[in-house]
């Protein structure tokens, strides 16, 4: 008796994600029927647009361009941010000096950096990437710096005593301790960066998701806007599932 209860509980919980998505779709369909207006197309209409744009190759192209920008700017921001964050966390004098810069850069609105980059460097790809990097970089630096401050001094002493080289210390002693902070910066970074990229594309590029959304806005094509949004959300979710989760699992296998 008890066993069946546990079993049903488990299987129900298993279906929660599917159920909640279905509920959202039902709500959407209901609202669409109620409003009956082009400003809120039904899920089926949106799915049709999504399918057609996928077949024509238009959506994959713009999605691909945006993802490429995401990968490039994200990689630059993470590499630079980790290097600077570790340096600031390990050197209090350096940190005391650059702390004010960080506070300033953290508080510059994304839109301002984007506009300035376009004004100074022209409407070119590198300006777009630079704008995204400048927006993301301070966040990465702050997260990694906090992580570096919590490093276990006992283990660092051990590494010094056993004459570990700098790269060995970084790889085997420091990096594993920074892993949770790097993952936090990655997750918050991905969410932040793709939103900024859309604005960057909207303001100064002639391809990518942001550019397309801008076109749809001018045509009041809500179905396409929703179709592109769904495609993007799905891709980001896939990234989390296929890349980030396995990385987490591999890095934390030593925990009890």
């Amino acid at each position: 008796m008890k066993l069946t209860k546990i079993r049903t509980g488990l299987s129900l919980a298993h279906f929660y994600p599917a159920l909640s998505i279905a509920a959202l779709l039902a709500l959407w369909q209901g609202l669409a029927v109620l409003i009956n207006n082009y400003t809120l197309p039904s899920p089926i209409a949106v799915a049709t647009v999504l399918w057609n744009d996928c077949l024509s190759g238009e959506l994959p192209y713009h999605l691909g361009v945006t993802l490429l920008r995401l990968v490039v700017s994200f990689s630059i921001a993470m590499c630079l941010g980790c290097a600077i964050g570790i340096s600031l966390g390990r050197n209090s004098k350096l940190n005391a000096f650059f702390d004010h810069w960080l506070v300033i850069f953290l508080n510059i609105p994304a839109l301002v950096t984007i506009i300035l980059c376009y004004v100074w460097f022209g409407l070119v790809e590198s300006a777009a990437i630079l704008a995204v990097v400048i927006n993301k970089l301070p966040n990465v630096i702050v997260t990694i710096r906090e992580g570096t401050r919590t490093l276990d001094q006992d283990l660092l002493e051990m590494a010094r005593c056993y004459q570990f080289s700098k790269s060995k210390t970084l790889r085997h002693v420091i990096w594993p301790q920074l892993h949770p902070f790097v993952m936090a910066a990655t997750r918050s970074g991905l969410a932040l960066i793709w939103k900024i990229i859309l604005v960057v594309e909207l303001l100064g590029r002639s391809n990518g998701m942001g550019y397309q959304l801008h076109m749809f806005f001018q045509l009041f094509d809500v179905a396409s806007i929703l179709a592109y949004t769904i495609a993007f959300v799905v891709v980001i979710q896939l990234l989390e599932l296929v890349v980030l989760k396995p990385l987490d699992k591999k890095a934390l296998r030593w925990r009890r």
Partner: protein
Amino acid sequence: MTAMHINIQNKTYPKATAPTIADFKLSLKANEFVCLVGASGCGKTTLLNIIANLDKKFQGEIVIGTQQHPKIGYIFQNPRLLPWRTVRENIDLVMEQDHSPAVINALLDTMQLTEVQHSYPEQLSLGMSRRVSIIRAFAIDPDLLIMDEPFVSLDPPTARQIRSHLYNLWQQRPHTVLFVTHDLREAIALADRLIFLSAGPMRVVSEIPVPISRNERDDETAIELFRQQLLQNYPEIKGLL
């Protein structure tokens, strides 16, 4: 043959009014096992960190062996293993790149840790972790072994067992050892020479060779007898324990 010579003229912490260590001299012969016995807070860990080159802010001179950068195997009070590396990887990491796996196999075997070599430190008991840290120190074939109360907070049978493991290992592979403890029985069971330290600033109160032969070190009564004699003949060490 001198394996190590310490001469610390002055070690004063910033903001401290008096030096922690002043005019301290100590020499160790090659493969000598020396126990430092002293009350907590007398500066033993400071001394060890200076010797291990972890603390460079002092006046004086430390000479270990003949090399410019002597290899020091430090067995810390906490094992200080890397939790994200297995037992074997922890040992591998401190060794030279082209070392032979047979060395590690033999050490693991002596310390009875072969079965857990692929486990992570968090899966081990404290006693096992301590044994791993002992292996790690021996694995680099050090010019000096430093042990900072490695058996503290273990239950007496476990401590005794690991102590005899350590003793066997040391007899198979003799090294110069500096061992810190406040357990007089433990010190007598292990050392060639006992050095009693007092605080403020740290100084040597008494220096006593242990006359018990190497094959009698398991003999609890012989150790106890010598301990009684010590306390009787050197009343000044009572206050240090």
